[in-house]
């Protein structure tokens, strides 16, 4: 993985000093809260319901064991012993004291980490494919480009006060595992007829209040021009993006208003001046950064069937089928550690689990861990002949729930329990649904399904692209939940359609059950929920869900996260 040189260390150290000074000026009253707010946001510090929340960047979702141990240390020393992995591959701590944040940042800097631009109206952490470097369908490893973009966007002086936040995702494989269509900029690595590497450049995607899939503004951008072209897009957005209404301020609204053609024309006009300028990438620079992502020292191993020695072990078989993914090197596999054990808020990990995961990564996977945007953790380079041993160890610590991609692998934001933006709680909904459908045989029968829950329209829980999406809404001061179906990420992304009037929290498990009933009776052999939902449209689901009164269930799971 990327290692800091003297310049990276210097910049991050100076950032810590800058923020320490800003905090001191806030505490002394020299800085007003309204002036401090954008400064702390650009360091990932939010004021939440109970305390400050600190979001730490995990650039393109790649962590070392030493960094994971630091997360555990921070959880113990400054928080309440746990952290929350987010849908943007970062980690958040929910119980932070303002006075301690400079020390936390100094601790993070000691493991080459920071919280720079994890919030605020600037270019955020760049996200990517959790199987980068190991996936068989990869064209080129996207992480060197993500790192190059990270450095370029870090404190970019012209783009520190954009109209709104700005998210970039990059995917280097045939299958899109980075949800690039719902990002402000989505980059797909492609090759042209001459076999050269470049990007299909999308812009204007996003979720939130107005979910829109991105538009392709350039079919092929040679990789050398990645930074100059991005700069052109940013300059058009910085100048012309709306600033009068924060709900209309994302680049997607500008792109819709101008139309793709006119937007692209403006970008190209801006780019004409920048093309071949100093920010044009050189082969030397790409090689320098790419060297950090060279494959680890794989052993020459035969591909084996890991189940062969344990033919009657159903638990192991379930785990292999859901939590173990193919690897491009024979004899290796990628393993997902599930952070979706029923009764635990999705994405949460305790300090003890973090330390344990750091150990597992060192013993089984070259000391690297990858948070996913589905809020699980990947050990990307595990020997197939060690899968059984790893499974036993992970299982003993509650990290081997065989539910990856299943109903209880819920994407969920922190919601109204923590977040001051939320209209409604999201964690109790996730908990109640997970309890209701905890039966693994049932989950395996339902198969691949993405249940995504957001506590407000900002869509941190990616509800728009869930097979089933749940959105918390506020109606006259009480919490209600709007349900959509048929959303999808990947190569055929889609925005889900709302089925009808919203439900109370206690009705939600029953609503999910009714949706699944329609699926089970209507599906073709092997058809996924999302495909059935897209094939049939919302009508049969709607008719069944609203056919009879929905009895509210008992409050469930509250004590699990109290």
């Amino acid at each position: 993985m990327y290692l800091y040189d003297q310049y990276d260390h210097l910049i991050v150290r100076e950032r810590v000093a800058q923020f320490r000074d800003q905090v001191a000026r806030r505490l002394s009253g020299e800085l007003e809260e309204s002036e401090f707010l954008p400064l702390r946001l650009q360091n990932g510090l939010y004021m939440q319901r109970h305390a400050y929340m600190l979001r730490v960047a995990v650039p393109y979702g790649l962590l070392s064991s030493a960094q994971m141990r630091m997360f555990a240390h921070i959880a113990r020393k400054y928080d309440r012993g746990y952290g929350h992995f987010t849908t943007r591959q970062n980690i958040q701590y929910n119980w932070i004291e303002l006075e301690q944040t400079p020390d936390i940042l100094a601790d993070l800097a000691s493991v080459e980490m920071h919280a720079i631009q994890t919030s605020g109206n600037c270019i955020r952490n760049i996200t990517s494919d959790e199987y980068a470097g190991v996936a068989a369908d990869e064209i080129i490893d996207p992480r060197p480009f993500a790192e190059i973009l990270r450095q370029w966007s870090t404190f970019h002086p012209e783009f520190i006060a954009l109209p709104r936040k700005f998210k970039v995702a990059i995917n280097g494989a045939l299958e899109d595992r980075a949800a690039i269509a719902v990002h402000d900029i989505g980059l797909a690595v492609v090759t042209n007829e001459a076999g050269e590497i470049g990007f299909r450049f999308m812009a204007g995607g996003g979720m939130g209040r107005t979910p829109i899939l991105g538009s392709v503004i350039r079919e092929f951008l040679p990789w050398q021009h990645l930074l100059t072209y991005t700069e052109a897009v940013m300059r058009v957005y910085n100048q012309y993006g709306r600033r009068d209404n924060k709900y209309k301020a994302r680049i997607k609204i500008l792109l819709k208003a101008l139309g793709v053609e006119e937007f692209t024309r403006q970008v190209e006009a801006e780019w004409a001046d920048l093309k071949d300028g100093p920010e044009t990438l050189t082969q030397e620079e790409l090689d320098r950064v790419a060297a950090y992502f060279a494959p680890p020292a794989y052993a020459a191993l035969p591909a084996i069937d890991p189940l062969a020695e344990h033919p009657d072990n159903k638990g192991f078989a379930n785990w292999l089928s859901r939590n173990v993914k193919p690897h491009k090197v024979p004899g290796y596999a990628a393993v997902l550690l599930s952070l979706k054990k029923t009764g635990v808020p999705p994405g949460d990990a305790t300090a003890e689990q973090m330390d344990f995961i750091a150990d597992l990564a060192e013993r089984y996977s070259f000391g690297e861990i990858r948070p996913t945007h589905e809020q699980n953790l990947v050990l990307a380079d595990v020997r197939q002949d060690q899968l059984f041993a790893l499974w036993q160890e992970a299982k003993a610590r509650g990290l081997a729930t065989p539910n990856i991609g299943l109903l209880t692998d819920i994407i969920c934001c922190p919601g109204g329990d923590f977040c001051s933006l939320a209209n409604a709680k999201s964690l109790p909904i996730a908990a109640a649904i997970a309890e209701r459908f905890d039966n693994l045989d049932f989950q395996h029968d339902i198969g691949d399904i993405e249940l995504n829950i957001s506590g407000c329209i900002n869509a941190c829980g990616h509800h728009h692209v869930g097979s089933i999406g749940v959105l918390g809404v506020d109606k006259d001061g009480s919490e209600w939940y709007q349900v959509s179906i048929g959303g999808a990420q990947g190569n055929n992304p889609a925005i889900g359609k709302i089925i009808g009037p919203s439900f109370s929290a206690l009705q939600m498990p029953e609503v999910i059950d009714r949706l699944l009933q329609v699926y089970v009776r209507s599906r073709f052999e092997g058809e996924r929920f999302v495909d059935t939902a897209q094939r049939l449209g919302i009508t049969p689901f709607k008719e069944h869900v609203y056919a009879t009164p929905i009895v509210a269930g008992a409050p469930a799971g509250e004590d699990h996260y109290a």
Partner: protein
Amino acid sequence: MLELHPQIIKDKTIVADDWSVLRLDDTESPETVEVPDGKIIVPLLVWQAQREQLAARPEIGVWIGADERPDELKGELDKFAVIAVNFPKFTDGRGMSIAFNLRRRLGYSGELRAIGDVLRDQLFSMHRVGFNAYAPRPDRNIEDALKGLFVFSEVYQASVDQKQPLFRRTHREVQPGDSDVGYGI
């Protein structure tokens, strides 16, 4: 309304200043407003409406609003002793692109001054995109504001102050002494 800044930051030091910024109120129009004698920085629209009279003055300045385009001054940049860019709010970054374009695209090399809601914590970035003068908000200590220009000693990307990105300026390589992983635990 005339806005005075007895002191500004210019070229990284605090200096006395005798320019005034003319701002129109709702009742005034660019065509008819009377521009007082002396060293005045006028709104772009006033310059465009009264170009002939104003150009005849020994010294004149102009300021560009966040929603105006610097290209409007193409071909006449040498007429101004100072060009200012107004920041209606410190969270409005349009002025950053205006400054960049004035320097890099239009080749302006004279004094470029940030006016309006100009605060210490934005000065470093302002310097990078081409500002060399700053009129910090008058309710703030200008000595403190000056410190904002010295926050970082290295940067990754190219801009006006630094024409080459880090990767073209230096040989980058991790040295044995660079890593101090984990000292904080």
